[in-house]
């Protein structure tokens, strides 16, 4: 049994498929590639496979990971090659290696927002910085039961950088991956609450990197 970790990108139109659909897509891709995965025991055996930080529908990523257990011992670069041609458009394997670190060590996710305004608000960067520098950043979140509850994301959403490129503004942040998980949508909610002019006409979200608690890149 070989425990492997795949790093992959999910970009373009395929960003619109859900986490569950993505898992099915991978499972069929492994089958097409002739790579046998270990299956769970029980009445409905399923391939043992996990992608620990589900990406929301519509968001892109350059840094997803997928943990699998293969039945056979196959060199990493061969796994990458076998699988690459069997994946649908928009999913690209960037690396294959042994699982050495537990994925629970991931604390931060680098998240880039592309904010598109009809006209960028004045002092845009300073206002966004100011927002992240607040004493508290309380946003309303819908719980599983459907009720609204307030959470403070201060300390779990960090400003990284800001630049203006072509027709949009690029905001880079670190958002907490777990305990608590901060969804990128929460950042836009904070705009709405504290400085509504910052809410863009339209925006996209791309994950750029995974980090541990000390902001070292996670492998």
């Amino acid at each position: 049994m070989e425990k492997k970790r795949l790093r992959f990108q999910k970009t373009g139109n395929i960003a619109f498929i859900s986490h569950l659909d993505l898992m099915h897509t991978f499972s069929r891709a492994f089958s097409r590639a002739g790579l046998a995965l270990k299956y769970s025991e029980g009445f409905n055996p399923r391939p043992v496979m996990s992608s620990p930080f589900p990406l929301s529908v519509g968001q892109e990523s350059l840094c997803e990971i997928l943990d699998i257990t293969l039945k056979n011992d196959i060199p990493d670069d061969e796994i990458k090659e076998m699988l690459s041609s069997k994946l649908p458009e928009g999913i690209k394997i960037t690396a294959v290696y042994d699982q050495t670190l537990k994925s629970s060590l991931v604390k931060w996710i680098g998240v880039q927002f592309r904010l598109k305004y009809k006209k960028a608000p004045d002092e845009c960067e300073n206002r966004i910085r100011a927002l992240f520098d607040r004493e508290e950043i309380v946003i309303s979140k819908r719980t599983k039961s459907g009720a609204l509850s307030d959470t403070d994301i201060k300390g779990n959403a960090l400003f990284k950088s800001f630049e203006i490129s072509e027709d949009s503004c690029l905001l880079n942040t670190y958002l907490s991956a777990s305990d608590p998980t901060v969804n990128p949508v929460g950042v836009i909610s904070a705009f709405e609450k504290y400085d509504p002019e910052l809410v863009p006409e339209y925006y996209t979200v791309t994950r750029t990197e995974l980090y541990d608690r000390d902001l070292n890149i996670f492998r």
Partner: protein
Amino acid sequence: MTDDLRAVLNKVQKPARYVGGEYNQIIKDKKDIDVRVAFCFPDTYEIGMSNLGMSILYKTMNSLPYVWCERVFAPWGDMYREMKERQLPLYGLESGDSLGDFDVIAFSVGYEMAYTTVLDMLDMSGIPYRREERNGLKNLVVAGGTISLNPAPMADFIDVFFVGEGEELDNEFLALYKEAKDNGLGKYEFLKKASQIRGVYVPALYDIEYNEDMTIKRFLPKEGAPFPVRKRVIEDLDSVPFPTDPIVPNTEVIHDRISLELFRGCFRGCRFCQAGFTYRPIRMKDSETLRRQGVEAVNSTGHNEITLLSLSTSDYCELEKLCDGLLKFCEERSVGLSLPSLRVDNFSIDLMEKVQKVRKSGLTFAVEGGSQRLRDAINKNVTEEEVMNSCRIAFEGGWNTIKLYYMLGLPTENDEDIRGIAEMSDKVQYTWRTYTRNRKRGLKITVSTSCFIPKPHTPFQWEKQVGMEEYLRKVNILRDSIKAKSVTYNWHDAETSVVEGILSRGDFRIGNVIESVFKKGGRLEAWFEYFDLNRWLEALDENGLSLDFYLFRDRAYEEVLPWDIIDVGVLKGFLITENKKAHRNELTGDCGERCLGCGAFTLTEGGYCYGKEKAALSKDR
């Protein structure tokens, strides 16, 4: 993709349906392409992507180097509203280009309730849905599938109907289209030429004369157009390409699996069954071809289930050989094999044991009629003894869930026949008590009824349809007579049956009704969420038409029927004989035992029908 579309996709449910990009989709370079085809399915992505016909013809059309065929599906309500609001046109999933950019817009239409959606899909793209309002060769609208068995209701909208199987016909048509486009031919000139291809019906080339009672007097073909238009069939199913590399959806669809088609046509001749009469003659696929195609398809898609398709799987000539061959492969690869439409006998139970090792899903019997008399009248060649025997075998084998399907409103049906359904369920329960291996697990019988709708090209095409009140009266009789505790009774609602009835046997005047319903907001009407009977009743009224004319009258054998323009190969005389036999409660039986001379074998050049050959062999013996 534009930001506008992205913004919309972020708002709607299951956006994966609207983005394409699946494994095995076909992308071509526009500059190499002469003819762009938008292959439209007038229902959702999940339904359309489960359709074997779509999958076959997508591949067939794309095999021409100068053609690029893309898929288009109807968006669900939320997406529809968003697109309308932002004036986003409907687009091909492969290129994202608007329907208006395509040369040929081809619809695959398998059921009547999708008709308004055809208008809607054209309208969403700014293409006029009435054919007289489309003047150029570009945006030519063609349609195939069961829509062509009675094209009359949709003849105002569709330029060209393809009658029968498309594997050869579609590409002959596209070759002619390319030539016409190269030579700058006008639409009418092209249509005249196209009408000479066998299996092509061009409504613009026929005038219709009516009688005073508004039944049809006669069809008047123009410009040398054929009358009737004869259905196209593939003579040798092994020789036409079958897609062993179908598109693998990125999201869940209705049938997430490989479909293998065992044969076309059916021996049974059930008098209510449109497929049984219109898919003739019977042509088998070779089991080795099927096995090979199944293996290839699993390898190229990664699917973990194969399903065997046909109208009656038990009638496939090499079923045992095929299953043995596939099972070996399936076991090695943990691929499931499913066999719908299987008759229950010792052999099939054995087979099912092998196929589904752990789970025992329910068994389904299409009994159709509640008494032997009625089953004889509809030529459903099944006896109560056979059903009970099958049940016994199933119960002994450990099954405890049984579904029984019936139709209400069949010609000659009386109230005794309906009570017979309840009696039969009692007997099934008794059989279970006698033979089950484990009484503790209990028994679940589900009885379902639907309302019979007489269909064109069947022996019942002249019959009345029962109205909603009468159907509900019958439902109540059955409900009151079911006493067995283990029975759950479901009935199909009667409202859609009314509309399906009008559209099935509608004439050329129904086009206006379809248009009015569409204008009142009718689309995706196969979904109860979107269906509204009142719209249809209003539209009929506005157009001065009545249900009586379409549903509640007996048609005379001599009447010229709107679908007489289509020749599916079965002789009208044969249908009349079958109709008369029905009223005498006479069985005709299976045409694998004795060729009944329906005439369908004349559709193939060699005069081939597997049923005819088989019957001749058994006679020699």
